[in-house]
């Protein structure tokens, strides 16, 4: 059985449920779907939800990194959420610290962040750039 990811619009977030297992073709398809959805919904925040993922190797790291770069070029921002404790521990040991990618603990925090962003009414491009400093 294939492990399909789902993309849902939630407030001005795009919630992407990352599948447990990822292989090359699926990464490419998932990225395309994310970009299409950003365009369609004009989402500013792309929330990659990792709560289904119990192994995060460098391949996932490349996926997160690549998706965040592409998303930034569209004036939006990737945030990751739902990482399990054991996965976080392993990622750090692996050396995968993803310095340019922000994380939140769970969906609640992501929604709060999304609302604060919207009330600040930051234009999408500025929102993508101001995380540089």
């Amino acid at each position, binding site marked *: 059985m294939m492990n399909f990811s789902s993309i849902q619009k939630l407030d001005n977030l795009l919630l992407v449920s990352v599948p447990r297992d990822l292989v*090359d*073709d699926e990464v490419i398809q998932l990225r395309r779907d994310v970009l299409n959805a950003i365009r369609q919904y004009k989402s500013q925040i792309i929330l990659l939800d990792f709560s289904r993922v119990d*192994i995060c190797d460098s*391949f996932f790291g490349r996926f997160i990194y690549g998706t965040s770069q592409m998303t930034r070029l569209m004036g939006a921002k990737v945030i990751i959420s739902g990482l399990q*404790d054991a996965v976080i*521990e392993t990622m750090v040991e692996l050396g995968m610290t993803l310095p340019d990618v922000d994380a939140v603990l769970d969906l609640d925090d992501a929604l709060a962040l999304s609302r604060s962003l919207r009330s600040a009414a930051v234009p999408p491009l500025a929102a993508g750039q101001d995380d540089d400093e």
Partner: protein
Amino acid sequence: MSQPPERYPLHLWIVEENHPLVAAWQARMLARRLHFSLADQTALATAVLEVARNIVRYAGRGEVIIRPYDDGVEVVARDAGPGIASVELALTDGYSTGHSLGLGLPGAKRLMSTFEIETAPGAGTLITMRKFPRAR
């Protein structure tokens, strides 16, 4: 609950793209049987995934062998692919000939308790690594 010990060593062909995921899962299953902590299970499974994905990407095909070793798990990953010209470089964070993050091998080495690599250009690659549960 516990499976017959003659199940091991487990030989797994690494040929298709999803095979590394199977190998990682099998390693986790053995670690769980040996009462590894969740963190140790995850570390082991991630290291297996790294070396097995390298087999698919750089050698095309190969094999992963998983077995109990003392109170830990031994994993052998081998292929008859192009081999690695400089092990020192390959074990350096950020070094990649595949336009990737270059974290796989150095990361796997950090995640495991022991890590040995035997390789030469044209002679394939043999990695032997072991994980022993950390004291909790």
